[in-house]
């Protein structure tokens, strides 16, 4: 029954955090989602769900990446979320510096 299952889940993974990361457009939010969801969480004590969503603000498109973390302990939650931020920062930096239009507009011989 729905209530029992959700109570069981809450007690098994009492530490939770939801993040909503804004992106300039839905394409980039989708790229981030697809790049980051491939790797499974390493620990069975951590659950993660990823999705693109319409952000709370004024957009009509899925321009935000929502990630929900549930973990058995605060420590596991912290480790998982910090690791996620490391990967996210890399994805964002690659988008910023190496998206096709960014590279095309740069002179050929500059590093």
């Amino acid at each position, binding site marked *: 029954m729905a209530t029992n299952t959700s109570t069981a889940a809450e007690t098994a993974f009492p530490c939770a955090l939801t993040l909503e990361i804004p992106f300039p457009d839905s394409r980039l939010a989708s790229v981030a989602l697809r790049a980051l969801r491939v*790797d499974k969480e390493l620990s069975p004590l951590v659950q993660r769900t990823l999705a693109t969503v319409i952000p709370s603000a004024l957009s009509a498109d899925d321009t935000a990446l929502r990630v929900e973390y549930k973990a058995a302990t605060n420590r596991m939650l912290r480790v998982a979320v910090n690791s996620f931020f490391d990967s996210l920062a*890399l994805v964002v930096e690659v988008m910023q510096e*190496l998206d*096709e239009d960014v590279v095309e507009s740069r002179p050929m*011989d500059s590093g």
Partner: protein
Amino acid sequence: MDTTKKKRRIALGCEGSANKLGIGIIAHDPETNEPTVLSNVRHTFVSPPGTGFLPKDTAQHHRAFFVRVAKQALANAGVRPSELDCICYTRGPGMGAPLTSVAVAARTLALLWDKELVGVNHCVGHIEMGRAITGAANPVVLYVSGGNTQVIAYAEQRYRIFGEALDIAVGNCLDRFARTLEISNDPAPGYNIEQLAKKGGRVLLDLPYAVKGMDCSFSGILTRADELAAMMKAGGKGPDGETFTQADLCFSLQETVFAMLVEITERAMAHVGSNQVLIVGGVGCNERLQEMMGAMAAERGGSVYATDERFCIDNGIMIAHAGLLAYETGFKTPLEESTCTQRFRTDEVFVKWRK
């Protein structure tokens, strides 16, 4: 513009299974399949003397340098993302966090540039680059690095492992001994052991010799070498009644482990009926190993092939080359499957691009 001229195929390859982050771009000629290195950029994470590189710090290094190295690789090659055929990355084997950090970036590039991904076996990358650079037709391959020690021969579309290290890789033995001696890890611990070893040679210290059939073992040798290093620090005497030095230790360790590698390589050559040896992997840069292997091969009427540090040390171009070879046979890695794995046997790869 001549529209009947076939376009050359170009791949970008990303490598980060250990402490070297490498990104390279390769082109294959549409008529001759000749490979051309368009760029090969690498940045190494060097840990302080007396320490090794840990997965978390190494992954952090790769994330920090990926964009820089990628931009340099594109600029050196003079290639636009639209010209690429595919993005290749190291699927494994290697260290988990570093491998994944590079895979995440490779996936992002593939999605941004709308290119297919190709997951590559690191060992096969070394082999294919070695074959391409040296032109060796069908050699027995000795793959020796900090993470791997394998004797490989090609048969029926697989790179078959004939012999290997049973515990730690020969490069790991050398790297960890460098930590014992607290010598610099810059540019690489094995390189500094090689330079020290050149100053040795007065005495050969007694170390175990651990060849077991087609395989070999290094962890016992490392233990004994560590014991001798402690004795040296305490002013102990060698077999000739004199004190011995770091140079004597490095010389003795190299002579012992390299002789073992020559023996298991020769055993595979006899088994397979080959007289050519191709040495790949970081330890393959070692000139003493090349010399010893060359002497054995010459006695058998053959020769040794080796590449320089651009290609024998982990690099991105070998991933691009091996990946493009696979891609040209129709192989690709769907995004959802573009994970990494710490264990990935060389013979798991179906070498469709060779007969």
